[in-house]
């Protein structure tokens, strides 16, 4: 080789080395490759021995199943997965795990070593005396501040995914979902930091007592201890008002995606546990936020006008209402609370029932009617909202977004806590969830009843909710796995009502509730517990379908991405039809009507469904498939189009004698056959 060649080779190799270095650097912050998606069952850890029983960290099995109740399935492959933070056993059906992107270091303790000074420092901040700390098992020390850095809810816009965290927010680039990249981490503690996004604005819910207007991380130091009250009648002095405290909804301008700028911080009396973005079809200049506050009412000294009194004592109480924030899009800094509708107003009639108790002192036996919503899902296309409001599920008229009105309210003896709601796409059903225990507890154990901590599906007719059935993720979970119904979204398969739902450490379950009386699981993903010997908060907070993939916010581990894979309960055609639905923004609690193009793949999905339900005999299914194949092969030539058109009337005839679900499918199929789109 001559010298020039040598230089060329050197140059080339230098380039390679350089590039390799850069790629390695890039890979360092890119996804952990997903383990095998197939069912992979390892044997669980041995049951806790007697010594462990004395350990407050030892998980406890559920008591005996209450009479007449059914528990969870212990034979399910998900019931005995091996534990691990990042190497837990996994089981999946119909879902392919694409990747797990771990939380950035700043949202974790940041160390795997209990002896790391960082860990000790953090424990010190939590107020633990050093001599007591020394007695703690080392693994325990690593996992005790989980919720302070827990991932929470998600919103989507274009190629960006926004994932809330109790300590702030992460923004990801999902232009290539399999190579999802973290773009920016925003530090702004306050929990839960649930997010919504609209054009250049991002909204974030803050409720916790450490939230600060300036996104500071220091919270508020406790004052020196006050002298003890001397007499029985001496009132506890009020704590000092903190003008820097923030509880409410923050508004950020996200024009610079890596550097969101806070433009407004709208304070509310109870803070914002969640909020719902509401758009008014008749008003393009403003958006609204329905604020659900579930926590304590702060004192009037801190935020003027706040009162936590019972309604009979103070008609302006911050209880028994939601708050509506109006956001002028041209001047979001002027956003403010414009109304506080009392959606529960006539529900305090129960007063009379419980008076006369033996404890006559104030407040001892006051009735506690529903006084808050946990979450509200609006469906503006229908002018309706479904509120999951503590002790009730309620139906709300939102045609005038600033003045919502209650239409109906239901309760249920098996429901502990109404948490969230989804409408079916046609608005004829509502799926509510019961977050029994608030998500911190193990509530899917073998002996936990399948009606508790479950979904409740209601039929909706003439603005009345009518109970149809319960659905609970069926697999028994370990005693150390927090598990209960939580957030999900519709999965846009035409002709079916599917919800992809998160169950904390119970994983992700796709439920078909097309038949409201008989909901059925059709796909799932689950990991084993984070720890076998101790409940460590984790699992999926929410799982949402967005433009072809399922994204799931994992509280402790990070962000998961999934794809649907075909099974006998969901065909490739149905998946392809779902992928046709593309939206530019997704805030799940602001439900948008899904419409499918009249493409042949949608027709094929309906045909698959009619075959599965035996809504048409096999020979007709075959004939329909042949007609569609012909039309596809000939690129919708005039002859093939005519053939399809000729099939439409017979489908419409068949629809008259079919089940409600098949009627919808047959008519939709006939419609495509009449006017197919390329």
């Amino acid at each position, binding site marked *: 080789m001559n010298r020039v060649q040598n230089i060329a080779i050197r140059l080339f190799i230098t380039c390679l080395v350089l590039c390799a270095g850069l790629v390695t650097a890039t890979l360092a912050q890119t996804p952990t490759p997903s383990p095998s998606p197939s069912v992979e069952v390892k044997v669980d850890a041995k049951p806790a021995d007697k010594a462990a029983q004395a350990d407050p960290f030892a998980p406890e099995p559920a008591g005996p199943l209450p009479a007449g109740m059914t528990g969870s399935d212990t034979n399910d492959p998900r019931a005995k997965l091996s534990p691990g933070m990042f190497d837990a056993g996994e089981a999946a059906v119909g879902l392919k795990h694409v990747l797990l992107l771990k939380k950035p270091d700043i949202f974790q303790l940041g160390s795997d070593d209990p002896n790391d000074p960082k860990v000790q420092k953090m424990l010190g901040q939590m107020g*633990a005396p050093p001599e007591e700390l020394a007695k703690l098992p080392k693994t325990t020390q690593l996992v005790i501040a989980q919720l302070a850095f827990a991932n929470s809810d998600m919103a989507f816009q274009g190629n960006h995914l926004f994932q809330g965290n109790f300590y702030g927010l992460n923004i990801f680039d999902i232009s290539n979902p399999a190579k999802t990249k973290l773009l920016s981490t925003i530090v702004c503690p306050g929990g839960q930091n649930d997010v919504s996004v609209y054009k250049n604005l991002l909204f974030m819910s803050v409720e916790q007592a450490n939230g600060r207007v300036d996104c500071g991380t220091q919270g508020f130091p406790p004052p020196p201890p006050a002298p003890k009250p001397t007499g029985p009648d001496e009132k506890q002095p009020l704590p000092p008002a903190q003008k820097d405290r923030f509880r409410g909804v923050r508004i950020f301008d996200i024009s610079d995606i890596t550097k969101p700028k806070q433009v407004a911080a709208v304070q509310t009396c109870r803070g914002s546990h969640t909020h719902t973005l509401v758009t008014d079809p008749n008003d393009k200049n403003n958006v609204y936020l329905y604020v659900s506050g579930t926590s304590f009412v702060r004192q009037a000294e801190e935020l003027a006008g706040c009162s936590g009194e019972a309604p009979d004592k103070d008609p302006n109480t911050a209880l028994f209402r939601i708050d509506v924030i109006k956001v002028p899009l041209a001047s979001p800094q002027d956003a403010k609370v414009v109304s506080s509708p009392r959606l529960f107003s006539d529900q305090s009639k129960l007063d009379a029932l419980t008076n006369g108790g033996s404890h006559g002192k104030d407040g001892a036996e006051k009735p506690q009617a529903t006084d808050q919503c946990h979450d509200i899902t609006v469906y503006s296309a229908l002018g309706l909202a479904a509120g999951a409001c503590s002790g009730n599920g309620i139906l709300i008229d939102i045609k005038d977004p600033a003045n919502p009105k209650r239409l109906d309210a239901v309760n249920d003896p098996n429901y502990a806590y109404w948490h969230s709601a989804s409408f079916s796409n046609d608005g004829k059903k509502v799926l509510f969830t019961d977050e029994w225990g608030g998500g911190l*507890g193990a509530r899917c154990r073998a002996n936990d009843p399948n009606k508790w901590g479950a979904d409740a599906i209601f039929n909706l007719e003439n603005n009345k909710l009518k109970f149809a059935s319960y659905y609970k993720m069926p697999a028994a979970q370990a005693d150390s796995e927090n598990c209960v119904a939580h957030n999900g979204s519709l999965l846009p398969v035409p002709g079916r009502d599917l919800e992809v739902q998160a169950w904390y450490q119970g994983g992700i379950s796709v439920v078909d509730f097309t038949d409201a009386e008989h909901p059925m699981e059709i796909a799932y993903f689950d990991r084993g517990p984070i720890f076998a010997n101790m409940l460590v908060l984790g699992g999926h907070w929410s799982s949402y379908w967005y433009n072809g993939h399922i994204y799931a916010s994992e509280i402790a581990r990070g962000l998961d991405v999934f794809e649907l894979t075909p099974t006998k309960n969901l065909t490739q055609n149905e998946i392809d039809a779902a992928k046709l639905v593309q939206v530019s923004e997704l805030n799940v609690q602001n439900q948008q009507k899904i419409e499918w193009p009249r493409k042949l793949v949608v027709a094929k999905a309906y045909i698959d469904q009619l075959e599965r339900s035996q809504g048409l005999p096999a020979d007709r299914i075959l004939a329909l498939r042949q007609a569609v194949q012909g039309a596809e092969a000939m690129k919708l030539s005039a002859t093939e189009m005519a053939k399809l058109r000729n099939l439409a009337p017979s489908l419409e005839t068949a629809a008259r004698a079919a089940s409600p679900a098949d009627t919808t499918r047959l008519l939709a199929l006939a419609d495509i056959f009449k006017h197919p789109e390329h």
Partner: protein
Amino acid sequence: MPDVLRPSKWLHFNSRLLAAATLAGLLSLSVCAQQAAPPKPVIVQPGAPGQPTRELPSTTRATLPPGSPADVQFMQGMIMHHAQAVEMTALIDSHTENKNLRSLGARISRSQSDEIKFMKRWLTARGQSTEHDMSGMKGHDMPGMDMSKHEMLMPGMLTAKQMEALRNAKGQEFDRLFLRGMIQHHTGALTMVKDLFDTAGAGQDAELFNFTTEVDSGQRAEIRIMQTMLGEKP
């Protein structure tokens, strides 16, 4: 992996490919540039509304808000409080045949046992005792506090006399006393939560905050269910 990382594909060239090699090298550099284009994720902290957002060093680590002695006392007191609810529900099977009450009792028992477990974990993880020290207790005017017979009760807890009456009742009378007693008991828990948040510096721990909010909402919902049950059988 991008093609440029597979040298074997490229290294078999002869001397006449000098230009091509140079070009390939340059190309691979430009591919590198693209590969490296998304820079490392940034960490930023917004300011108050209208204030600029500033970039933080990549080595920034999270810190926690300060803990408060009131948090610890709350958890210790609530363990004691919850324990009585479990004691009350344990009477149900032998004292009544009411199916709805049995089901409700089973759920209360399960929830509160589980929450006791949570509170013990919370305290132990912070190096604190799970026992309640009454001497540090505030709010002696709380409903349910009955010091006259040396009973140390958290708000809403049934007195020894009330518990005795409950133990001695059967059937419908038990149902009535149980529901009234549990409403009183749960209402006391709401008082405890309110008092906690009325204490300066308290309740900034995320887990404690979520837990208390859950206790508050969950028990309000249960009170409502119990009130309905009482109304159904006057």
